[in-house]
């Protein structure tokens, strides 16, 4: 479950799957179907791509899209924008990803930066098994996959990470305990000095405002990047990182690692959150279900 695109659902008729935007034209074949304690998971071949999908109420949610011919290709815009977080780091000694899904971001980073240890945390054992079997995500040196609840993992962790990616979706939603102020405080304690937190957020409901407000309540700075249907939020502490500084870091990383999707152009989409008006969520009070039921009317933050 952890890991994924809260990409708007695609209706699933009894006759079969309607295509999603990226694959409407492609022939779709289900090549694996698993029931885990948390999800019904489908691995679907869509033309030359392989998709990881979660089924909820006869609707299908894309979690990951993978091109086996080119594992360095990130097909969802939000997964590309997640990597913009690299420009926010002062150093790169360790990376953590909460929510593996099809392991796209982790594998992309690992292929480009094999010397940087990446720790993935995924709750659903079936998701881990399928990621290994169909998405080429095999544990090896500097790519560790741990089956655990992301919050519990971070609370028990002793090391610090320069970058923590949070992309933990259970089918259509993020469990409430991964959205609260106390959770982000736990995350903050595991961020190395000069590091950052990158989170994928579904922007169409009131829960988005609450998520941004909660991030902003815990971290000094929050930047957002619109990425097709999703928003990538990047939070960090300390002095403001100026555009020039980010660009310089992105350029340095590009020459060192030669990313297939260069980071520098993504930085143009950066928007700094100056004030957040959503409700700060706490462990005690996090009405995530009702916030998610309310559409946001004030789009385009």
């Amino acid at each position, binding site marked *: 479950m952890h890991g994924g695109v809260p990409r708007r659902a695609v209706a699933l008729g009894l006759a079969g799957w309607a295509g999603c935007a990226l694959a409407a034209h492609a022939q779709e074949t289900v090549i694996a179907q698993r029931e885990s304690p948390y999800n019904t998971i489908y691995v679907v071949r869509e033309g030359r791509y392989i998709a990881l999908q979660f089924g909820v109420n006869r609707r299908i949610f894309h979690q990951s899209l993978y091109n086996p011919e080119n594992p360095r290709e990130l097909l969802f815009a939000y997964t590309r924008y997640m990597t913009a977080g690299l420009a926010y780091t002062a150093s790169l000694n360790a990376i953590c990803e909460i929510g593996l899904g099809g392991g796209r971001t982790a594998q992309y980073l690992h292929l480009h930066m094999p010397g940087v240890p990446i720790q993935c945390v995924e709750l659903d054992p079936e998701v881990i098994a399928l990621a290994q079997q169909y998405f080429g995500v095999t544990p090896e040196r500097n790519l560790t996959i741990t089956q655990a609840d992301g*919050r519990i993992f971070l609370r028990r962790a002793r090391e610090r990470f320069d970058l923590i990616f949070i992309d933990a979706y259970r089918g259509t939603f993020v469990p409430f305990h991964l959205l609260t102020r106390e959770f982000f405080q736990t995350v903050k304690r595991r961020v190395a000095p000069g590091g950052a937190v990158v989170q994928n957020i579904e922007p169409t409901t009131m829960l988005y405002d609450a998520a941004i407000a909660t991030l902003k309540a815990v971290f000094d700075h929050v930047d957002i990047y619109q990425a097709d249907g999703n928003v990538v939020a990047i939070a960090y502490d300390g002095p403001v990182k100026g555009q020039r500084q980010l660009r310089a870091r992105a350029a340095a990383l590009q020459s060192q690692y030669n990313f297939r999707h260069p980071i520098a152009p993504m930085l143009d989409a950066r928007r700094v959150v100056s004030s957040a008006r959503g409700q700060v969520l706490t462990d005690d009070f996090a009405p995530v*279900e009702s916030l998610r039921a309310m559409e946001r009317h004030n789009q385009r933050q």
Partner: protein
Amino acid sequence: MTHWRHTAILCIGFLLGVALMGVQMASSRLLTPYFGSGIEVWASLISTVMLSLMAGYYIGGRVADFAPRSQVLGVCVVAAGALLALTPPLATPVLDWTLETMGDGVGAALFAAAAIMFVPMTLLSFFSPYAVRLLLADAQHGGRVAGAVYSITTIGNIVGTLGTALYLMTKLGSRDIMMTFAALIAACGVGLIALRSEGQTRAA
């Protein structure tokens, strides 16, 4: 046994049924940040509630035969409410301690759920067998009396589950929800104690 008294006991049964499930839903929110939202946490919670019901039905039934007075039941129910009122201030230290010493496995989740709920929920579930004993006029009607008690408390359970999940949790924090139900339970207990004096005056 007046008709009025009969109705009052069933109404209290409904309210306690609401509170029982409300407390369980609120407890799930208390536990999740510590033990995750995995299927094991729900299993631990449900098992703990079932364990409480088991103990409460058994002990409550025996106490009812020994002292078939609504006042005794009322005192037990007030005690359940008072213990639940301790949960909001004590939950954080108890859960922190559990995590430190026992880890975050299923055993720890079970222990934490039991620490929060077992004693008050056990006292609360004295109600059903006790109410059967109080309402039973003669063995001829034992079946329908027991049926009425179990169905009214179960309707309360349904209202408590849905009402807490769909309404209270959107308005109140889990500690406030716990306090609300603790107050409701204590009020029901006071009602049961008052009922007894009412019955006595009439009998006298």
